[in-house]
């Protein structure tokens, strides 16, 4: 909290979007992590965004990634008896991650992040101009 809450608002959004970017990166990296146990398979992660009041004004809401949820999608069962991780019946389990949906999420998060950087920079410029008044 500060006298210039606009920086806190934009900063909180950048933080939340970077959490989202990290979860996408983690999901993409683990898209092919198979396992022999359906309960031990990597589960796609997704952040949950909620508003968070910044400063004294209740109308001024920042954003916070309050939790990261695991996807409840069932793992994909593949018959690969030659796989070293295959279970007794010759099956391996892969997480149900849609790379296209993840890429869309990645682009959306990255654009939102950029928009907030834009806000931050322009707020910084106006604040500096105000501070330099009369010089």
């Amino acid at each position: 909290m500060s006298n210039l809450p606009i920086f806190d608002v934009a900063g909180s959004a950048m933080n939340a979007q970077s959490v989202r970017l990290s979860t996408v990166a983690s999901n993409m990296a683990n898209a092919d992590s198979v396992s022999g146990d359906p309960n031990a398979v990597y589960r796609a992660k997704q952040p949950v965004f909620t508003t968070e009041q910044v400063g004294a004004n209740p109308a001024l809401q920042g954003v916070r990634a309050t939790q990261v949820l695991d996807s409840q999608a069932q793992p994909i069962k593949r018959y690969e008896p030659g796989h070293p991780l295959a279970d007794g019946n010759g099956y391996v389990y892969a997480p149900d991650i849609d790379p296209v949906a993840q890429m869309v999420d990645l682009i959306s998060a990255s654009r939102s992040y950029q928009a907030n950087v834009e806000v931050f920079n322009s707020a910084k410029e106006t604040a500096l101009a105000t501070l330099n008044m009369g010089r």
Partner: protein
Amino acid sequence: MADFLGIHGTALAVREQRLQLLAANIANADTPHYKAQDLDFNGALNAALAAQRGGPLEQGSAISTATTNAHFLRPSSQPSLDGNTVDGDRENAAFAQASLEYRASLSFVEAKVRGMLTAITGQ
């Protein structure tokens, strides 16, 4: 001396409040159930000026009361599945415009300050 800056000092403060709200909208562009907010600049400015003229109210509290009363939730241009009413592009454009308006108000204030400085130093 209090009204040395005239309308521009108050306008600058109200514009700052609006900038903050628009920044919050952009920040919450992906937050479910968030409703886009805005400030009725005309209404807030008139109310703040009237309050300052009317009584011994502090300038700061007059402005904050006026801006709180002038809040409104902007209706969404199109429905979204998660109940969020922020339109990213519109919000960015509004922020750019509000930022420019702030700079305009700032330059008026600055001109006043410069004029006063010239008068004080007499150069």
